[in-house]
């Protein structure tokens, strides 16, 4: 069942600019060439009965209900598969058509129960609508169904499949094919025995189904239906908002009744997601009302004390007094704040404003520090802007797609569906990853090349690719010389041409066969539009920034920037990583990426905020920890970030937090970091506030309130009240006023307003006088920095190397069903798919250690030890192990180290030398680890 406010036009829109005029039921109608008669009629206000057609899927022509009459033609063609033609005269209603349609519907009804009153789709069932339109209440054919009595499949935690209600229209099968690209569904059997089957007649939960829900939305009856519809009843209202999970930033419609969300449906008009969603965005919103939500502010003098529930005024007053005391005692720069990539632009802007203007320090940072900070530095220095270059739809014009250090089908599934559509149309794929991600080989998709490099050797690989491009004469010299600093290009060519960068020279280091590198380089440089998409496998290295620069070098040298189908595209991890960076969350720059030492930029903010601002960079997150340990940093306001679980070298993090005198955690739940907090301020979920998120394609989209904040205040209101308690005047009545201030102070946001966002749906910045409706493709004609700049990207091996003591290299990532540290998804039914972290290990490495699939194994590094279960797989190469970090009981970051990117201090999560041993008694192992952490670990105290 599609969105309650969606008007289905039956078939997809035609893309042609040419118009054709025809006559439908006597009225002239003009539509783009290629439009179906069904859609043309719908656009003219005439709904032709249909069952197998819906406008998100290609016309199928199987149900025979949408028949029409066309003057001069024999028979009764299906309007969904018949294209409008100039001068055509169409009749959608006639006695003969009604007779035919009645016969069709009677046949369907013969195999479908008519107890509609008890059906969750009652009022929204297309078969019910068709029957009502034709006045059918029964069937002359009698019951011939064989599905009666078949037990519904309720294995999926979010939806049911009831074969009894299925009319075998194939919409679900086609949705899985055309929209999601998983091809998990099929129709098995014949005649009355036909039924939808997931994989090889498996329950949905056990099948290949990824639970994106596209099939559920496509279903015209209640055969596939959300369980929440059955338990909560039909929704009454819908609000468009933006998903709070990954950086794709899907536009969703929250359908609700009485402030209770009944279900989420992707917005067909959503610019980022084109009407699609994934299991997290569509279904995993239950955390917002989970019983673990903390809705009362709490304070305590010491982190060993029990929590004491207090009112907002007391909590905020306590915080303000403590911050002022600490500043008075230890200096202005002894405090700081952290903005969150899970919060809105307006909220992150306010937190950095509070730190800079109310606390008068630049000690503000954001969780982007630990993911995409190298993207900001690398792209700013080479291209001139700290952001990806394209819209997601650009991939549909790419001929060669390079995916580096990203796993889109798990991390960015809705983009992955679009990418797979393009690959199935014939675009080539190159994957550069230590692990065989699903895209390497998935139904109807196979990578032309998989460069399975050793963790930590990204820069050697990108240099080898560039070496081939330059030395084989494949570079676009005319483009590079016209668009880039010529001297930097010449120097870079000389640098990269050196034999030490050749695939043959780097093969012993990277482990990638030279011939494969050469083939991939030739393909990218000569295969047409080349588009690069990358993730944290690029950035979370000691050379993360170097790698980003290497990617930009390669794209500039091959002319793959500045138009659709090409580009350099970071796949951002969290919903608002881009936005939190844009909003001035980094300690060295204001919103719009202007350095704090820039007197002109600083003057703008000083004038607007009526304060004198610091002109020196502040501390980054890891620097804050170091300063806390030396006693010069004592208080931290953390909005929506769980350091203890997400940051590397957990012991180091907890030691630093325990050394502070006032740690304030603002979050939905008592997260791990709250164990070290003195103040807990309840956060508001994305359903409880207004604002905007900015996704990986620089797209600003509205977040709209569906329910009141459970704790009474939205996050921006809490920050505002804290600023006021600190004595700094901050007064906004609505987040739109904050956005107005952002627009006044940030050149790339100058043309953004809530009014324009409501009118256009979304806006890709820069949005200003030169681009009043935004900028889908950046660097068209020239680079933002003027001339692009090439950087020499020497490969420098990480100090984290395998040794005889730690012979394996651990790398980390995430899976489709869980999300980052799991704060949200662990509190949803997504646990049905994955309820623990597992260590992927090659069977040969496992065998030599006596490890079998499912065994508990201890993973030890120089930083610490953890225990997880092993999963034997050839996805990882020999010598490499892989795990996720979704579950606190695994404590994966106990083993990651303090190594970080040279430019930004982004942690090197992706390379940790470890040893893996079979563990007979995991609890004993854990206890030993806990004992070793011992006295320094402060256990969570109970609420008083």
């Amino acid at each position, binding site marked *: 069942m599609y969105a309650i406010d969606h008007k289905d036009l039956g078939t997809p829109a035609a893309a042609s600019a040419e118009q054709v005029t025809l006559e439908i039921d006597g009225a002239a109608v003009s539509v783009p060439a290629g439009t179906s008669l069904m859609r043309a009629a719908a656009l003219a206000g005439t709904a032709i009965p249909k069952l197998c057609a819906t406008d998100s899927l290609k016309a199928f022509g199987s149900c025979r209900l949408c028949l029409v009459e066309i003057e001069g033609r024999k028979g009764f063609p299906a309007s969904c598969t018949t294209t409008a033609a100039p001068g055509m005269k169409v009749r959608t209603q006639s006695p003969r058509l009604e007779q035919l349609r009645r016969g069709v519907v009677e046949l369907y009804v013969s195999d479908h129960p008519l107890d509609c009153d008890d059906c969750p789709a009652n009022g929204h069932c297309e078969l019910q609508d068709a029957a009502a339109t034709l006045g059918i209440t029964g069937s002359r054919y009698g019951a011939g169904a064989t599905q009666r009595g078949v037990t519904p499949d309720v294995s999926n935690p979010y939806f049911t499949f009831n074969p009894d209600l299925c009319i075998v229209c194939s919409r679900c099968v086609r949705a899985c094919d055309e929209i999601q690209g998983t091809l998990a569904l099929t129709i098995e059997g014949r005649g009355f025995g036909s039924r939808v089957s997931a994989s090889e007649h498996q329950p949905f939960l056990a099948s290949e189904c990824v639970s994106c829900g596209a099939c559920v939305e496509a279903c015209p009856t209640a055969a596939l239906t959300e369980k929440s519809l059955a338990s909560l009843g039909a929704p009454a209202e819908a609000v468009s908002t933006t998903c709070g999970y990954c950086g794709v930033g899907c536009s969703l419609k929250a359908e609700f009744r009485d402030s209770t969300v009944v279900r989420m449906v992707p917005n067909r008009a959503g610019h980022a997601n084109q009407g699609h969603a994934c299991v997290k965005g569509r279904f995993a919103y239950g955390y917002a009302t989970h019983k673990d939500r903390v809705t009362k502010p709490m304070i305590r003098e010491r982190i060993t004390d029990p929590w004491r529930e207090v009112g907002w005024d007391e909590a905020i007053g306590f915080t303000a007094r403590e911050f002022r005391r600490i500043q008075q005692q230890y200096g202005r*720069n002894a405090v700081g704040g952290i903005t969150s990539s899970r919060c809105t632009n307006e909220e992150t802007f306010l937190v950095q404003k509070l730190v800079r203007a109310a606390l008068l320090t*630049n*000690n503000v940072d954001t969780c982007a520090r630990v993911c995409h900070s190298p993207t900001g530095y690398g792209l700013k220095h080479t291209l001139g802007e700290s952001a990806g270059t394209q819209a997601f739809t650009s991939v549909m014009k790419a001929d060669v797609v390079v995916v580096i250090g990203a796993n889109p089908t798990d991390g960015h599934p809705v983009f992955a569906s679009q990418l797979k559509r393009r690959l199935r149309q014939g675009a080539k794929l190159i994957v550069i990853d230590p692990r065989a991600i699903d895209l390497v080989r998935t139904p109807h998709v196979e990578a032309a090349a998989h460069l399975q490099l050793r963790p930590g050797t990204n820069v050697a690989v990108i240099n080898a690719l560039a070496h081939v491009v330059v030395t084989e004469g494949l570079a676009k010299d005319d483009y590079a010389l016209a668009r880039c600093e010529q001297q930097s290009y010449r120097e870079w060519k000389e*640098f990269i041409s050196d034999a030490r960068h050749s695939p043959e020279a780097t093969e012993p280091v990277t482990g990638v066969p030279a011939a494969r590198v050469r083939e991939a380089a030739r393909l990218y440089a000569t295969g047409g539009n080349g588009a690069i998409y990358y993730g944290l496998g690029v950035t979370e290295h*000691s*050379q993360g*920034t*170097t790698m980003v620069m290497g990617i930009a070098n390669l794209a500039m040298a091959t002319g793959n920037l500045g138009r659709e189908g090409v580009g350099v595209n970071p796949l951002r991890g969290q919903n608002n990583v881009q936005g939190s960076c844009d909003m001035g969350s980094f*300690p*060295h720059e204001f919103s719009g990426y202007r*350095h704090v*030492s820039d007197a002109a930029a600083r003057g703008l903010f000083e004038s607007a905020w009526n304060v004198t601002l610091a002109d*020196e*960079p*502040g*501390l*980054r997150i890891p*620097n804050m920890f*170091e*300063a806390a*340990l*030396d006693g*010069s940093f004592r208080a931290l306001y953390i909005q929506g970030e769980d350091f203890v679980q997400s940051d590397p070298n957990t012991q180091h993090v907890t030691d630093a937090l325990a050394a502070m005198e006032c740690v304030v955690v603002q979050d939905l739940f008592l997260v791990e970091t709250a164990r070290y907090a003195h103040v807990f301020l309840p956060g508001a979920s994305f359903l409880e506030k207004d604002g905007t998120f900015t996704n990986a394609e620089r797209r600003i989209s509205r977040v709209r309130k569906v329910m009141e904040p459970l704790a009474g205040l939205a996050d921006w209101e809490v920050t505002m009240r804290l600023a006021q308690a600190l004595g700094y005047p901050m007064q906004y009545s609505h987040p739109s006023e904050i956005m107005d201030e952002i627009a006044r102070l940030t050149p790339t946001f100058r043309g953004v307003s809530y009014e324009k966002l409501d009118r256009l749906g979304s806006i890709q910045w820069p949005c200003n006088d030169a681009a009043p409706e935004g900028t889908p493709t950046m660097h068209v004609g020239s680079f933002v920095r003027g001339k692009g700049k090439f*950087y*020499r*990207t*020497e490969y*420098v091996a990480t100090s984290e190397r395998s040794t005889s003591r730690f012979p394996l290299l651990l790398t980390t990532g995430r899976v489709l069903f869980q999300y980052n540290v799991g704060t949200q998804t662990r509190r949803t039914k997504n646990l049905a798919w994955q309820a623990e972290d597992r260590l992927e290990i090659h069977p040969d490495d496992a065998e030599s250690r006596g490890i079998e699939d499912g065994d508990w194994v201890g993973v030890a590094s120089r930083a610490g030890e953890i225990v997880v279960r092993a999963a034997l797989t050839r996805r990882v190469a020999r010598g490499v192990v892989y795990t996720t970090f979704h579950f606190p009981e695994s404590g994966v970051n106990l083993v990651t180290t*303090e190594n*970080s990117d*040279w*430019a*930004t*201090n982004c942690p090197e999560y992706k390379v940790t030398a470890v040893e893996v041993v079979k563990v007979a008694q995991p609890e004993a192992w854990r206890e030993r680890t806990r004992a070793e952490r011992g006295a320094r670990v402060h256990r969570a105290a109970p609420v008083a």
Partner: protein
Amino acid sequence: MNTQRLVAMANDIAAFFAADPDPAAAAEQVATHLKKFWEPRMREEIRRHAGAGGEGLSPLALRGVKQLG
């Protein structure tokens, strides 16, 4: 601040800029990076360490730190 950690960070920065064949330009870029991205107490500590001989700092990192003034 943990001096050894700062030394390691400064060396990592120098390792990137060492790709510049002009040592003077490389040192200048190291210094510029430290000025733009290191908080004053970090710069002060690494400067103090360099002044005390700069044990552990690579030659380029040491040269860059000394240009901090």
